[in-house]
């Protein structure tokens, strides 16, 4: 008689099957299906129509505005996020908890409200409104407003990702580097940065995806000027409201494609540097 051994950490087959089906079904229904529909609708009248909708001047302008806003917001927030995480994780100072709480603020405030804050500050009736008008500085309903709103909304991504990571890594390696004669800057570049680079990459990709996709806050400050201050999400809305479904879905598909590209890029890097990643996780 052969004894039947069961792996003690293995759940029953039925349970595994149910869990897998639920997980895969959920992903398919709520993530994959909508994405497929976006592409299907975009190509409803053929590739040519979709392509024309994208290279049409207003659409191209929205792509430019979106890329520009993300191109400014993401590096700034990366710089800020690294500094904040470094300050919080490697140093003790009064007001640390307040800083950490403040970093989370954009996550807890509705994007529309954060957009309105800028209207309140820079709008005609706002604090600096008349001053800005007198000096012919355009922040609201212009690119600077869009960039500011994007920065505000994507502010926490990098810091949020890095703080727990850097706290978890402790200060040992930095202390070792200093005692070996490294300067603060050299310690940061040679020890701190390499230790957080994967988390940082992930955070920057997330931040970028959100910066490109932000709708609420940007919608309030942009003014929706076609060909000038419309970002891609705003342009999608505009086309959709004008019953231009192919155009709307074509631009949406382009936006989705950009997001997918970042995911592919991340996977390639993970695959390429698998050895290093494994070395970082084992202790």
């Amino acid at each position: 008689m052969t004894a039947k051994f069961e792996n003690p950490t293995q759940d029953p087959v039925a349970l595994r099957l149910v869990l897998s089906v639920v997980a895969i079904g959920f992903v398919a229904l709520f993530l994959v299906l909508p994405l497929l529909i976006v592409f299907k609708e975009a190509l409803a009248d053929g590739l040519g129509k979709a392509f024309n909708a994208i290279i049409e001047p207003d659409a191209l302008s929205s792509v430019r505005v979106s890329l520009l806003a993300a191109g400014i917001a993401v590096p700034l927030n990366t710089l800020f996020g690294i500094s904040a995480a470094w300050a919080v994780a490697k140093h003790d100072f009064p007001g640390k908890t307040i800083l950490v709480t403040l970093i989370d603020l954009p996550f807890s405030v509705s994007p529309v409200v954060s957009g309105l804050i800028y209207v309140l500050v820079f709008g005609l009736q706002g604090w600096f409104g008349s001053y800005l008008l007198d000096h012919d500085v355009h922040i609201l309903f212009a690119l600077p407003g869009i960039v500011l709103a994007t920065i505000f909304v994507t502010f926490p991504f990098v810091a949020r990702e890095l703080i727990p990571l850097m706290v978890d890594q402790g200060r040992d390696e930095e202390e070792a580097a200093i005692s070996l004669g490294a300067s603060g800057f050299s310690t940061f570049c040679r020890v701190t940065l390499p230790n957080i680079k994967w988390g940082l990459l992930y955070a920057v990709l997330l931040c970028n995806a959100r910066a490109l996709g932000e709708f609420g806050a940007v919608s309030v400050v942009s003014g929706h000027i076609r060909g000038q201050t419309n970002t891609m999400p705003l342009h999608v809305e505009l086309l959709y409201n004008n019953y231009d479904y192919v155009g709307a879905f074509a631009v949406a598909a382009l936006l989705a494609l950009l997001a997918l590209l970042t995911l592919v890029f991340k996977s390639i890097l993970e695959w390429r540097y698998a050895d290093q990643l494994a070395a970082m996780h084992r202790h």
Partner: protein
Amino acid sequence: MSLIIDSVTKRFVRFPALNGASLTAPQGAFVALVGPSGSGKTTLLRILGGLEEADSGSVRFADLNWLSMPARERKAGFVFQQYALFKHMTVAENIAFGLKVRPRRDRPSRGDIRGRVRELLGLVQLEDLGPRYPSQLSGGQRQRVALARALAIEPRMLLLDEPFGALDAKVRKELRVWLRHIHDQAGVTSIFVTHDQDEAFAVADLVAVMNAGRIEQYGAPADVRRDPKTKFVADFLSA
């Protein structure tokens, strides 16, 4: 060229960590700081390494006003309990780190650095492990790499914070004999923190028994053992 620690104090927010610790040691001595956890021995070591700032007191070493020097200029090789090896660097890169970060005019050539790394790998008996990453080594091997890394900068002082604390008893015993051997070869002044009195008394020239931020007794191991000056020392030794 001796080490003179004079009434060093340090307060943390909630408790005093050091209440005026003083001791002197000749150049090249191997000094063990021993005592229960919370007795201030690690704090004293970190102050010597420049990783913690003293509130008052002074330290003279090799005729230098030691505490006024920034940590990176002290050339104090620090060995941590949890190794603190750079995870993303190979063993050889770890050892070379202290040489590579020197300002250009003091930095040895690539060839010299490579030669020095090979020499140190030999010293810590890890000749073939240069290309490995720390995660691929055992605890004892990692601590030997950490020691080689600290020795690479030709330290004036070697500071060891419970270096064998995370290792099993057999490896600890082997390594402490070997550490003493390395110390004698390198000719540095070493300060060694441990809570294990056997270890301290077996390896050190001078032992400082610490309690509640003070040095209760300081002297040669045999003297301290023969003639404990306070009840705490007597209790600690009989434990």
